[in-house]
């Protein structure tokens, strides 16, 4: 892949480098110092551990699903168990991994450092949000352990509120509680970005990662209350037979879907926007040039967040909604594709005349562009009224949203983890192993989910524990891919853990990159900076930053790689 005669292009660890004497990891010791910490970086680590736990819970469910679907008859588990597996897979992954993953781990760690602050605006509330997450998670795990959950992660009524015999009540209480964790995190981010930027850090000098989280936070605080109250209503109907959604009590089952998707469609953007923010940091760093169309990428994040709120009923084209309403929601859904496309075009254009390296984060970044493009384009098929009738509730939908959420959000998350790992731990991971893992993930992912597009067009409905035999070939391909994918997830777990102790010391800025977070120690001090930083450079500017040491650290004016040809 890369040429072997060249000296290592990057990163460039200095052999004798030492970790800084003092940093947030060794500032204090003991379990209390972690559980009662208000340091946003330590809270990020707490989140990292908890979301990783839920990722593995969800991942085990996913593996069992794929093994079960190897044969049309499905002999591994009973129908009840299968239904619980896909429901618990969805609930664990969406509410307890995907939604908090990038914001609560990377956002928590990085946003204060990126804006040049000592901490988030409300450090104690930040810790509180982690505890709320744990309490919500405990309720959900209790539901999983005492009867499981078989409603589908969408909790459609009246199945969830009346007919299901599984432990729905603790699950909806858990998700209700967990919602407050998101709301508090969003609030903290918005206020931090508004009030705690360092001198010189103007709005248009903010890293795009911060813009993406700002947009995400808007959705957190506007959307989350709706899902919380909706699930509470479903819970009340279940516990006290209040007639909100069940027609037998005078309720309307479609009302639930409106309320549910009013949050849960924007929630898709909660998952993907932060990943877009990560990619917007990775690509300029490893192309060593300013991002193409900063304003457009920043504005498109806000555009996606705003338009994302008025497309929810595209999940409901087949419920019997009026034709006019279907037309309006289809139109708006096509509209939200425009800002998404703008981002993809701008990232691609950023590569033009860059100085591109193959480092692991960049592999994730480029993988993200490809997978998000496929995920986004297949979304158009579902937005299209004439096609959605055939594709709705088939494996096409399953493939589409896994391309967005796994291909997009998780690739972005892993890319970000690799990119900022040296900052978080002060150490580098084994680069070649990491590249192999990234490529394994990319191959395994496509083999798992691409066949599902075809399955869906052939008409295989989702959430089926057995299926007609003509669908078997594609299902076997998908399961084969999933086993490769699983390996791709295990590898980083192993070498990242290993690197925390044995990895090479990274130094302040191993890539190098231009953000404020790379001007401080790795790992940073508890206060992030020794003195308040002053920002006098534009974002992603490599040309006027001699301290990055590019093209001769002494040279005041680095020379562009390709001239103006």
């Amino acid at each position: 892949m890369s040429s072997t005669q060249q000296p290592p292009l990057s990163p460039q660890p200095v052999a004798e480098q030492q970790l800084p004497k003092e940093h947030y990891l060794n500032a204090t010791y003991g379990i209390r110092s972690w559980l009662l910490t208000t340091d946003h970086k330590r809270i990020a680590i707490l989140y990292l551990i908890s979301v990783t736990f839920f990722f593995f819970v969800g991942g085990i469910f996913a593996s069992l699903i794929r093994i079960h679907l190897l044969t049309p008859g499905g002999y591994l588990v009973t129908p009840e168990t299968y239904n619980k597996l896909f429901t618990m897979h969805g609930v664990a992954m969406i509410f307890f991994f995907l939604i908090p993953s990038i914001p609560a781990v990377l956002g928590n760690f990085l946003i204060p450092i990126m804006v040049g602050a000592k901490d988030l605006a409300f450090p104690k509330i930040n810790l509180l949000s982690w505890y709320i997450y744990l309490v919500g998670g405990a309720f959900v795990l209790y539901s999983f352990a005492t009867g499981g959950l078989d409603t589908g992660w969408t909790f459609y009524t009246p199945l969830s509120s009346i007919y299901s015999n599984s432990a729905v009540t603790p699950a909806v209480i858990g998700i209700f509680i967990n919602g407050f964790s998101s709301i508090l995190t969003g609030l903290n981010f918005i206020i931090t970005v508004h009030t705690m930027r360092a001198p010189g850090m103007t709005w248009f000098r903010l890293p795009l990662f911060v813009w993406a989280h700002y947009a995400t936070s808007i959705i957190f605080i506007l959307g989350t209350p709706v899902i919380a109250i909706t699930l509470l209503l479903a819970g009340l109907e279940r516990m006290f037979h209040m007639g909100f959604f069940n027609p037998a009590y005078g309720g309307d089952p479609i009302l639930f879907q409106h309320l549910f998707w009013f949050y849960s469609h924007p929630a898709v953007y909660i998952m993907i926007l932060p990943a877009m923010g990560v990619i917007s940091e990775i690509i300029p760093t490893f192309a060593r040039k300013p991002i193409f169309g900063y304003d457009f990428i920043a504005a498109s994040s806000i555009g996606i967040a705003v338009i994302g709120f008025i497309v929810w009923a595209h999940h409901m084209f087949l419920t019997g909604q009026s034709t006019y309403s279907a037309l309006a929601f289809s139109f708006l859904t096509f509209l939200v594709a425009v800002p998404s496309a703008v981002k993809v075009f701008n990232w691609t254009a950023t590569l033009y005349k860059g100085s591109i390296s193959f480092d692991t984060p960049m592999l994730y970044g480029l993988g993200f562009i490809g997978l998000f493009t496929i995920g986004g384009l297949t979304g158009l098929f579902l937005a299209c009224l004439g096609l959605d009738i055939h594709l709705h509730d088939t494996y096409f939908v399953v493939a589409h949203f896994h391309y967005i959420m796994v291909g997009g959000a998780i690739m972005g998350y892993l890319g970000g983890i690799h990119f900022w790992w040296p900052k978080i731990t002060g150490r580098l991971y084994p680069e070649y192993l990491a590249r192999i893992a990234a490529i394994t993930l990319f191959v395994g992912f496509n083999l798992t989910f691409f066949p599902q597009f075809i399955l869906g067009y052939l008409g295989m409905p989702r959430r089926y524990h057995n299926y007609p035999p003509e669908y078997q070939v594609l299902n076997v391909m998908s399961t084969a891919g999933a086993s490769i994918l699983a390996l791709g997830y295990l590898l980083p777990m192993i070498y990242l853990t290993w690197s925390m102790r044995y990895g090479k010391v990274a130094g302040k800025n191993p890539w190098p990159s231009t953000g404020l977070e790379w001007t401080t120690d790795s790992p940073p001090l508890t206060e992030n900076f020794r003195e308040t930083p002053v920002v006098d450079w534009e974002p992603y500017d490599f040309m006027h930053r001699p301290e990055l040491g590019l093209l001769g650290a002494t040279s005041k004016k680095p020379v562009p790689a390709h001239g103006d040809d």
Partner: protein
Amino acid sequence: MQSELPLYPEQASNFAPQVDGLVLFMIAVCAFFAVVICAAVIYFFFKYQRKHADEVGVPIHGDMRLEIAWIVLPFFLLMAMFGWGAVIYVDYRHTPNDTLDITVIGKQWMWKLQQPDGRREINELHVPVNRNVRLIMASEDVIHDFSVPAFRVKMDVVPGHYNTMWFRPTKPGKYHFFCSQYCGTNHAVMGGWVTVMEQDDYAKWLSGTTGSEDPIAVGQRLYNDLACATCHQPDGKGRGPSYNGVYGSHVKLADGSTVLMDDNYIRESILQPNAKIVAGYQPVMPSFQGQVTEDQIAALTAYIKSLKDQAPPGKPGAAESATGKK
């Protein structure tokens, strides 16, 4: 049957070629963009690979013309997709007048289907080829969804109201139908076969049956058993309006608005009589929620529909004109 690895389902209805045509267009446009993006990424990747460890890229910050181009051009393509999809969708939703109406009732976890002459089937549907068929669908419990991939049709079956969908089978054969909306434990086995028959075969199939009771007759008997007739007298002089000659017309309501007298209005009026009161009548009817099954509502509806050919009650006047029921 098809090959081991088919790429699209059989085309067996009027909608199938339309949907497949649109999907080919979408694939072409999307594949074009996906290929352009991927080719650009790969090309740049190799062309602008870093040659020296300390080299930087050319500082290009953006280009307004390009930005406008890649906002406007995709916008028009998206609108083309939207428009084409909308045209097909309107066709899906616009039921022709001459349909063969089949009642479909979903319950955990089976489908009950009934032909217009009353013949019942479980998880099987027989329809004649080249005839417009309408499914009138209700659910006894949770939300289900009736889906026939070979016809490219699908519709949610929602408790509490009727959804309908129509199609015209174009090719005799046997095709899967599925429940597509997750509905609990045995969701995956809540399906069956649609058999499309030549029209003659269909007629023979129908006549060869021992004939279940005509739904209109069942409805009439229920109508008397439930004492509907006490108030809803044919001359409109009871406490409720007459049904004669009303089905399919617009009915004036007490609040001044009008409502189309259709299957959904009949079912709503049986279950929630006070929701829409016909002008000139009092909200005195009790609810039959929980007292009638979906089958019985369908039979009552069939009977009330059959009265549309009766002469409406004579004298003109708001209260007694040819208005609804209750």
